[in-house]
């Protein structure tokens, strides 16, 4: 069952076509990645999805309903930058946001207890948000987004500008949430490696969808595997008419897929004394689809 459906969605700002006739769907419980460079139209789509911006044309439904105040209860959003009040404590921030969803008093105390356990917030509840480390702040952001137990968690470039450890902390928190609650995750990112972990990837560029499939299917369709041979002379490949390129101490041979690699190994076993086969990545897919180099 699809929890988000968009059809011919358009969002124009005068002559700027920020989102130009896109259609996609997100399944219940899916980890969905919306991949694109800055300015591709990701955040605009999120704004329309959250009801913050009116659409120019097209349809968008969440849980089968058009966007309204009720569908907002189905959404939790983690913004690119932390939007909590730095001068207030974690608890006060969460209490204020919870009240916006009608959660207060005993219900809030119980929910806070659950979230504290889930995201290890106990020690930082009484600390001002501005005094937290990057990783702690991100955990609080996620806790705020899921305060009201939304069906869909939207992560709008949640790891941009974070150090590797903090990025790992963020993903640990998200994966643990998915595991425990089965929440649908809608991720917008320009990091290829993050999109590679998704169940379903949509690549957007210039406001238009360029590709829509699982990472594996996209790699099969757009990316090449690579065999790297070591201790082989260039002439040996040239004599056999095998195209290659130099890569450090080795020679790289692009091949269609693993089956083609096996065929080549069987055909020229004398060349394969020291070698490795590398699968094509999402960055290759992105480059092939958009003609732009993504970030890894």
């Amino acid at each position, binding site marked *: 069952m699809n929890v988000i459906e968009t059809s011919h969605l358009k969002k124009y700002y005068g002559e700027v076509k920020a989102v130009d006739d896109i259609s996609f769907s997100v399944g219940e419980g899916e980890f969905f990645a919306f991949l694109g460079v800055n300015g591709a139209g990701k955040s605009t789509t999120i704004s329309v999805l959250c009801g913050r911006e009116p659409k120019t044309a097209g349809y968008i439904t969440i849980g089968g309903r058009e966007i309204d105040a009720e569908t907002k209860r189905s959404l939790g959003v983690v913004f690119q930058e932390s*939007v909590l009040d730095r001068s207030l404590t974690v608890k006060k921030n969460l209490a204020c946001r919870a009240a916006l969803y009608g959660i207060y008093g005993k219900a809030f105390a119980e929910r806070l207890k659950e979230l504290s356990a889930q995201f290890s917030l106990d020690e930082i509840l009484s600390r001002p948000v501005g005094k937290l480390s990057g990783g702690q702040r991100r955990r609080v952001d996620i806790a705020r987004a899921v305060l009201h137990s939304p069906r869909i968690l939207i992560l709008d470039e949640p790891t941009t500008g974070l150090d590797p450890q903090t990025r790992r902390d963020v993903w640990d928190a998200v994966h643990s949430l998915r595991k425990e609650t089965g929440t649908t995750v809608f991720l917008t990112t320009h990091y290829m490696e993050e999109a590679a972990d998704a169940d379903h990837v949509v690549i957007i560029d210039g406001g238009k969808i360029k590709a829509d499939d699982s990472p594996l299917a996209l790699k099969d369709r757009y990316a090449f595997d690579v065999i790297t041979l070591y201790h082989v002379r260039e002439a040996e490949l040239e004599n056999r008419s095998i195209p290659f390129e130099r890569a450090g101490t080795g020679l790289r041979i692009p091949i269609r897929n693993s089956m083609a690699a096996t065929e080549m190994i069987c055909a020229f076993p004398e060349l394969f004394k020291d070698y490795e086969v590398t699968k094509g990545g999402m960055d290759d897919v992105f480059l092939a689809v958009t003609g732009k180099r993504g970030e890894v």
Partner: protein
Amino acid sequence: MREFSALVRRHCSVFFKDKSVFFPSLITPLILLFLFIAFLGNVYRDSIRSVAAGFEISDGLVESIAGGWLVSSLVAVCAVTVAFTANTVMVQDKVSGARNDFLVSPVSGRLLALSYFVSTYLVTAFMCFVALGAGFIYLGIAGWHLSAADVFLTVLDLLLMILFGTAFSFAVCSFLHSQGGIAAVQATVSSAYGFLCGAYMPLSNLAEWLKNLLMFLPGTYGTGLTHLHLMGGAMEAMRGEGIPAEVVQGMREGFDCTLTFFGSAVPVWVCYTVLAAAGAALLALCVLLYLRPLRKSLDKIDPIMYDRGRRNR
């Protein structure tokens, strides 16, 4: 209702917790009061004596009238300038993205706007009444000639002026989207408003055309009301010291306790009507601002992002 009160509490907390905004806002009126007394006190004392030239006024009464002028000027200015400072929270929320966080919740944009309005009113009222309290202490020391009715009416004047100041600042700040923008507006308002509303200098000292021009501004009527209610008692007491009624009337006009517009005295009820109507009109303007498509007016497109987007295309 709980959502609304949570938002109002949050906006107030953010303001009071931000020491770089709260303390200057609190201390500025008190510093202003001190500066008024230290630097302008003698100017007004001399001015009072010159208006009553030929008649003997006790020093206590002169102190009381001068004090009334200074305190009334102070609270009249604070009602508007502090409101602009209190609205910093609304503008900061646009800059930080906190506003977007509220808008993705089921809370409507209009309820959010109302919460900013009410919190600005409450914060401004708190600061202004602290300033008025300090002013009352000063008047108690300088010479207390206020009746209970004067105190009540001063409080009423202040509440109305705060409504006017809140609506005025809210309407202006609705169009601001940066810290620099609000800082520039605050600096402009702080430096100009005191002159424009007749707080720093009695209107009667100005050229007739300028005086009439300033009488088109609603804030002037509020300042006139506070002058009347904080100085009126002391001026009445002048009669008890044998000062003729026409001299007292001259004093009232000289110190804007009685405003004149194109030569005619403006009744007190007209002052209240103008002030309340201006507050209501600005409030209506704020409502209109929020009735039109909210996001279009208040969540401006990030130009950098879209320039980048265009380049990529």
